[in-house]
């Protein structure tokens, strides 16, 4: 029983860590621009697929992974430059539709550049399962958890200690005030897309050895990441992480103890219930509405 519980917990944490990384990407862009970037899932796909194709052409992981992350970040920057920036001043819903268009475009591009098949990535350090308290997990799960932890720490250092990070944070709190104290708000917006694309790519690379990757893998992961970001509270870093982990654990626990057919539905019911009592998610800002 407890071994079973441990298995569900560890699996939930691994899946949840990926949701958390995607959710962080949503939050970073939301903070800078108040846009929900529905193309976030595509960065996850680009990370995984680019790594597959680079390693396929003979590059070692040490080179392929950084290159794939850079490629995704460049796509993120291009998205901001050519799609979000020109639409400045458009309503939030219009911007959402632009990012949806971008996600369809990127999926179509991936389909043409790469292919429509599923691909497996070699695990970073073998695939001999590790036993922890009766549960069996893959070494790759430890990579997922470890890298996610490292990223969370790095981000909190970045936003708490560096000038650029503080500038980005300031912009999210009050754009006009940030501009007045000399922060280049447009640059912040630009960089936030690059950063969040890079995060998505990392998630895509970490998870590919466990779950395979393909041109349309971003659809579901993007959706789950969005759900996690909302559950945690939009714009909150800690919220994104907790939201992601909670969603992952909720899914595996419902699959294990309740009904595997309805596990996603149960996860969404939980989210709806949380929103019912906490309309801004677990850690969201409860601001008054401007009149």
């Amino acid at each position, binding site marked *: 029983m407890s071994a079973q519980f441990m298995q569900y917990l560890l699996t939930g944490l691994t899946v949840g860590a990926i949701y958390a990384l995607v959710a962080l990407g949503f939050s970073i862009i*939301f903070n800078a621009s108040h846009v*929900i970037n*529905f193309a976030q899932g595509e960065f996850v796909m680009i990370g995984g697929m680019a790594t597959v194709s680079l390693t396929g052409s003979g590059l070692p992981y040490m080179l392929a992974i950084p290159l794939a992350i850079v490629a995704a970040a460049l796509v993120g920057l291009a998205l901001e430059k050519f*799609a979000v920036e*020109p*639409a400045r*001043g*458009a*309503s*939030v*819903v*219009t911007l*959402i*539709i*632009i990012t*949806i*268009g*971008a*996600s*369809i*475009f*990127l*999926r*179509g*591009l991936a*389909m*043409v550049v790469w292919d429509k098949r599923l691909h497996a990535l070699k695990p970073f350090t073998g695939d001999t399962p590790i036993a922890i308290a009766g549960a069996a997990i893959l070494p790759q799960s430890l990579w997922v958890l470890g890298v996610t932890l490292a990223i969370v720490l790095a981000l909190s250092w970045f936003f708490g200690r560096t000038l650029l990070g503080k500038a980005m944070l300031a912009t999210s709190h009050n754009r006009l005030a940030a501009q007045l104290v000399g922060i280049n708000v447009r640059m912040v917006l630009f960089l936030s897309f690059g950063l969040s694309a890079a995060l998505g790519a990392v998630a895509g690379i970490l998870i590919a050895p466990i779950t395979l990757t393909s041109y349309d893998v971003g*659809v579901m992961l993007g*959706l789950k990441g*969005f*759900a996690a970001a*909302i559950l945690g509270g*939009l714009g909150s870093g800690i919220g994104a992480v907790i939201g992601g982990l909670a969603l992952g654990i909720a899914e595996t626990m419902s699959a294990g103890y309740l009904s595997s*057919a*309805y596990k*996603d*539905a149960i996860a*969404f*019911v939980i*989210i*709806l219930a949380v*929103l*019912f009592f906490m*309309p*801004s*998610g677990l850690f*969201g800002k409860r601001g008054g*509405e401007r*009149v």
Partner: protein
Amino acid sequence: MLARLASPRTGGMLALAAVIALLPLVLSNKYFYDIAVLVGLNAIVCIGLNLLIGYAGQISLGHAGFFGLGAYGSAILASRYGWPPLAAMLATTFAVAALAFVVGRPILRLKGHYLAMATLGLGVIIFMVITTEDKFTGGPDGIAVVPFRIGGFVVQGERIWYWVVGALLLVAVWLALNLIESPAGRALRALHSSEIGAEVVGINAANHKVMVFVISAVFASVAGSLAAHYSGFVTPGKVTFLHSIELVTMVVFGGMASTFGAVVGAAVLTTLPQLLAVFEDYEMMVFGAVMMGTMIFLPRGVVPSLARLLQTRRQRASADGEEEGA
């Protein structure tokens, strides 16, 4: 009289009626009729959704769920239990309205992206129930649906359906336009610009939001019922969250807060994939690029942006004319 004709309400209605009446001149076979019927059904959903998004300012990423409930409700009652299709449709519509009413109040307390999430979640839950309860719904492979009949008259074939859907589309537009012009509609628009401001002047925001939510769900449900009978087959493909997003895209693409915009959005985005089929592998890329490009260059949606463009041009033209005259 002339002034009435020229009002956007009557004038627009007449124009739409003329389009529906004249379109068959270029619809040379059943395939074109089929596309036209699909446009009409999507347009009905979008008109309802536009009341919610465009006028009340509340987003929904779950309307495919209501469309699906309408389709499956009709399919199950009429095909499995042998109900008369009209009764099945009415009962389904009523049930969907009740559901929307019950879930509407707690959900619509949420704002912006949280509301988007909650409606998305609602849509996903409906989708999962439909795909899982295969004893009733036939699961992912779907079920066949009997033709729509009223008394002894069977509605069958693309051409008859074209006129039925065309007439219903006009009714939907008429209902929407009347609602917008009514006091309730003005209250809605007040809500859109500022909810607190609206409450201050005595508008019960929650009631109005729920009302519009129910109306939009009913539009979607009726279109779903009709679509099921028209296709003669229903699968969960049209209940996915991707379809919900597609519907919102149609509304925003055509132009928020414009009933005719919703119709144009539905028409363009329903026919586009058919036209783009020639691009084969590049179809998705082109489709995405068209969506992005349109929203970047016409951020208010096709109809309002073009109307504005025309207006400024005409003003400039008439200004030029006056100068010449003088």
